[in-house]
C-alpha cells in the first residue's frame, strides 16, 4: 500500500524560471527503503522539502501536481501537522540538535506536539533504543561523536512516530565510524521497526547507501529518469552518466559482462561476494594469482615525491581545554606528492595541518615543524603562507567579493603586489584551473563545484609550494570530485605538493601517492595506498575501511585474490573467464 504518492509534481522556486522538479511521479509503499539518487542540483532536497511541507510553507515556491504522504497533502497541512506522517533529517547534525541533553532533545518534538507525559517517555525510550543511544540520555549532545549526533537527530524525528523517515544525505558530513553508526541505525529502523525510509544520495556515499536500499528513484535535472530495483540504476551505467558514479563492485561486474553477457550486476558488496563465489566455485571464472604480495601496481613505480619539504618531529598539541590533539607526531612530507591524510574525526588531522601552516604553535618546546628549511614555530603566518597554505572545506567561509576576478585578486592585493603582477597571477591561476570563462561571473551565481575551484584559486594565486586541502570533495558529486582530483594531479606537475584530508577512501586509493592514517593524535600508518589499504587489521582498529574493491578482494582472499588490490582494473587483471 503506497504511503507516499507523488504525481505530476512540478516545483518552481520564486524568482526562478526553470522548475527545480518537472512532472515528477512515483509511489513508495509501506516498509520500503528507497534511495533517492541524483547528482547535485538534481532536485532531491526540493522533493524531500515538498514531501514534508517545508516547500511551500517555509520556502515559497509554485507547486503543481499532487503529493500525498500518509493520506495527507503537505500543501494543505502545516509542517507541524506533517511531522507525525513524515520526518526529515538533514545532513548537518549540529543544526538539528537544539537541547542540552540527549533525552531533552529527543523529547523536544513530542513535547511540541503536546503529547501526554507518559507517551513522551515511551516515545523517547523507543527512539533512543531504535537509534542505539540508550545509556546516553544524560549526555550533552556535544559529548557525542558525529555519528551519534546524527543518530540523535534521527531519534528526535523518530520520537514523533512518523510513518516515513526521509534523510537528506545524512552521512555526508560524518567520518567512517559515524557513517556506519547511522546506516546501521537506519537499516534497523527499516527492517525491525518497519519504518518506510527515503535516503537522498549524490555519490560520495553511494556504495554504503546501495547496500541498504531496496528500491531507487533516480533524479536528474528535476526529472525522474528511472525507478525500481537498485540494479536499474547501474544498468547501462546510468548513475555514472549523470555524475553520481557507480559502486566499485557494479563497475567490476559491468566490465566483466563484456566477456560474460548474462552476468547479473550487483549493487552491494555482500551480493558481489556471493556472486563471485558462485562463479568461482562453478568454474565460470578463475583467479590468475599475481606474483608477490604487491603484484602489479596501478601506478608503477609509486610516486613518492622528491626532496623533503616539511619535517615534523615530536609534535604535541594540547588545546587550552586540556584535550590532547597531537601526541608526538613525526612526519616528513616530500615535494611533488599527493598525500591523503585519513582518520576519524578528532584523530588530529586538522590540528596537525594547523601546526604545519603555523596557525597553532606546538605546546611542547622541543617540537620541530620545519617547512622548506624555515622553522614555522618561529615565523609569522605571512612568511609561511607562500610556502605552505591550507584551504578550509567550506569555500563559503572565505568568498566575499562580487565576482571571481575580484575574489582571486584579494590575496595578491593583500600582499601588496602591483596591479600588473596581480592581474598576471590571477589570469594564470584561472586559466590553469580552467575557470577563466567565469572571470567576471558573480560569486553568488556560482554552483558548488565552481565555488570550490574559486576557493582553491584564491589560495593558489599566492603560489604556495604546498597546499593542504580539507575535504576538497565535500558536497560534490562523484563526477565533480573526480574532476577536482584530476586538477590537483595536474597541479602537481606544476611543482605544487598537495595534502588532502578526506574520508573518501576510494578517491585516496585512486589519486593519492601516499596515505597517512592518523589515530589518537599519532601517525598510525604511512605508506602508499597499496601498503596502507592492505593493512586490514590496523585499519579496522582505527575504524577505517579500505575501498570497496579492496574489501571484495580481501573477502575472497581464499580464492587467491591479492588483498592489496586497489582498483577495479587490478581486480579484473586477476580474473580469467573460462566459459
Amino acid at each position, binding site marked *: 500500500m503506497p504511503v507516499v504518492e507523488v504525481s505530476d509534481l512540478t516545483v518552481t522556486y520564486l524568482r526562478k524560471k526553470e522548475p527545480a522538479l518537472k512532472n515528477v511521479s512515483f509511489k513508495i509503499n509501506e516498509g520500503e527503503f528507497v534511495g533517492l539518487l541524483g547528482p547535485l542540483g538534481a532536485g532531491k532536497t526540493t522533493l524531500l522539502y515538498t514531501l514534508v511541507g517545508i516547500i511551500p510553507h517555509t520556502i515559497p515556491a509554485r507547486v503543481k501536481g499532487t503529493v500525498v504522504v500518509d493520506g495527507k497533502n503537505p500543501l494543505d497541512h*502545516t509542517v507541524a501537522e506533517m511531522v507525525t506522517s513524515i520526518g526529515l533529517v538533514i545532513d548537518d547534525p549540529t543544526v538539528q540538535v537544539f537541547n542540552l541533553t540527549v533525552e531533552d532533545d529527543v523529547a523536544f518534538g513530542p513535547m511540541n506536539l503536546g503529547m501526554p507525559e507518559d507517551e513522551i517517555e515511551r516515545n523517547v525510550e523507543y527512539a533512543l533504543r531504535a537509534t542505539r543511544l540508550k545509556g546516553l540520555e544524560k549526555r550533552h549532545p556535544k559529548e557525542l561523536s558525529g555519528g551519534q549526533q546524527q543518530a540523535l537527530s534521527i531519534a*528526535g524525528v523518530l520520537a514523533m512516530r512518523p510513518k516515513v523517515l526521509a534523510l537528506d544525505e545524512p552521512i555526508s558530513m560524518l567520518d567512517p565510524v559515524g557513517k556506519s553508526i547511522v546506516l546501521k541505525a537506519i537499516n534497523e529502523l527499516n527492517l525491525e521497526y518497519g519504518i518506510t525510509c527515503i535516503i537522498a544520495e549524490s555519490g560520495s556515499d553511494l556504495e554504503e547507501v546501495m547496500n541498504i536500499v531496496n528500491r531507487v528513484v533516480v533524479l536528474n535535472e528535476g526529472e525522474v529518469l528511472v525507478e525500481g530495483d537498485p540494479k536499474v540504476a547501474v544498468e547501462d551505467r546510468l548513475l555514472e552518466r549523470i555524475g553520481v558514479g557507480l559502486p566499485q563492485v557494479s563497475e567490476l561486474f559491468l566490465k566483466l559482462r563484456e566477456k560474460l553477457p548474462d552476468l547479473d550486476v550487483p549493487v552491494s558488496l555482500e551480493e558481489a561476494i556471493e556472486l563471485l563465489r558462485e562463479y568461482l566455485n562453478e568454474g565460470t571464472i578463475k583467479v590468475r594469482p599475481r606474483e608477490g604480495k604487491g603484484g602489479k601496481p596501478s601506478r608503477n613505480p609509486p610516486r613518492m615525491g622528491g626532496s623533503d619539504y616539511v619535517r615534523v618531529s615530536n609534535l604535541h598539541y594540547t588545546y587550552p581545554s586540556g584535550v590532547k590533539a597531537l601526541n608526538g607526531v613525526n612526519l616528513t612530507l616530500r615535494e611533488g606528492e599527493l598525500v591523503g591524510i585519513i582518520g576519524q574525526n578528532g584523530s588530529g588531522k586538522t590540528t596537525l595541518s594547523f601546526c604545519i601552516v603555523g596557525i597553532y604553535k606546538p605546546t611542547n618546546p622541543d617540537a620541530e615543524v620545519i617547512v622548506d628549511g624555515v622553522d614555522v614555530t618561529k615565523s609569522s603566518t605571512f612568511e609561511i603562507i607562500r610556502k605552505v597554505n591550507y584551504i578550509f572545506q567550506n569555500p563559503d567561509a572565505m568568498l566575499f567579493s562580487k565576482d571571481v576576478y575580484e575574489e582571486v585578486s*584579494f590575496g595578491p592585493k593583500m600582499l601588496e603586489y602591483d596591479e600588473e603582477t596581480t592581474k598576471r597571477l590571477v589570469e594564470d591561476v584561472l586559466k590553469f584551473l580552467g575557470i577563466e570563462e567565469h572571470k567576471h561571473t558573480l560569486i553568488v551565481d556560482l554552483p558548488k563545484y565552481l565555488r570550490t575551484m574559486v576557493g582553491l584559486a584564491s589560495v593558489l594565486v599566492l603560489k604556495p609550494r604546498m597546499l593542504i586541502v580539507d575535504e576538497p570533495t565535500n558536497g560534490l558529486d562523484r563526477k565533480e570530485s573526480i574532476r577536482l582530483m584530476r586538477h590537483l594531479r595536474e597541479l602537481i606537475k606544476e611543482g605544487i605538493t598537495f595534502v588532502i584530508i578526506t574520508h573518501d577512501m576510494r578517491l585516496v586509493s585512486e589519486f593519492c601517492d601516499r596515505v597517512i592514517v592518523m589515530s589518537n593524535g599519532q601517525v598510525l600508518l604511512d605508506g602508499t595506498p597499496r601498503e596502507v589499504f592492505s593493512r586490514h587489521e590496523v585499519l579496522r582498529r582505527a575504524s577505517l575501511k579500505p575501498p570497496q574493491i579492496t574489501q571484495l578482494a580481501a573477502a575472497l582472499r581464499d580464492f587467491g585474490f591479492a588483498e592489496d588490490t586497489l582498483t577495479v582494473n587490478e581486480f579484473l587483471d586477476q580474473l580469467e573467464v573460462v566459459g
Partner: protein
Amino acid sequence: MPTWYEYSPEDTFLHNLSPVSRLTLIFSMLFLVSFYYDPRYLTVLLAISAAMYHSAKVPKKWLLILIPVVGWRLGEFLLVGMGQYNPELFRVWPREIVSRVIFEVHLPVIGDVRMIMGALLWVLGQVLHIVIGVLLTFTLIYTTPLNDYVRLMRKLRVPPQITYVMTVALKFVPDIFRMYQSIQVAQRLRGWAIRTKNPIKAAKLALPLMIPLAREIIRYVDRLEISSQLRAFGATTVRYQVELKMTKKDYAVCVVTLVAVTIAMYFLIMHKKGLL
C-alpha cells in the same frame, strides 16, 4: 576548534554550585555594582569578581575584549565627565575633594572645559562597572552550562517557547564565534590583516570577514528554522517538570549573598555608602 565565550566543564567551586546559587551570587553582585559609583567600593567588588574569575579558571585571554570596549567607552565617559563640572552634583564625598580641578582646557566655540575630581571619580566608577560586569559575565558563561539556564527557566515556569528561543540564542553565540574564527583564519591564510589606522580603511578591510560571516549566519538561521519546524516547534503549549538539586553549600552561598546584599543596600540607602 575550541572557541571563546563558551562554558567549559571544570572542577571548581563555582562550577560545582547549583545554577540557583551561582546565578544568585553573580546576579546579586551585578545588582550591587549597578548602584555603586564610589571607586573604593567598586574596587572591593572588583577584587571579589577577579578572585571568582581566577578561581573558576576562566581563560585570561577572554579579557582582551576589555581593551577595545574600555578604550571606546573611556572617551565617551571623559566627555560626559567634563560636562559634570558642578561640584554640587557630588553630595557624599567632601566638597573640597570633589571640587578640585584636575585639568582645564580651552576649546574654540565651547569655551573653557574642566575635569574636577568628582567627575574623574565618576569616570573611574564607570570604567570599573564595565570591568566588573565583564568579569562576572564571563565567569557566569564559563561556569554555567546551557542546561542550567534552561532548567532554571523551566523551574520558574517560563513558557517553553521563550526557553527554546533562549536555548537557541545561547547555542548560537558560540557557534557564531566558531564560524568567525574559521573565517578569520581562512582570510589570514590569504594574506588578510588590518594594517591601517585609518578607521574607514579598517572598516573596508573588515569586509572579508563580515560578508562570509553574514552569509553563514543567514544560512545557519535558515537551517535552524527548518530544523525547528521539523520538530513541530510552536505546534502546541507544553509544560515541563524539572527538579533542581541544592546542597548545603548552595544554601550557604545563597544565604551569605543575600545577607551581604541586604547589608550593602541598607548602607547604600540609609548612609549613601557607595555613592559619590
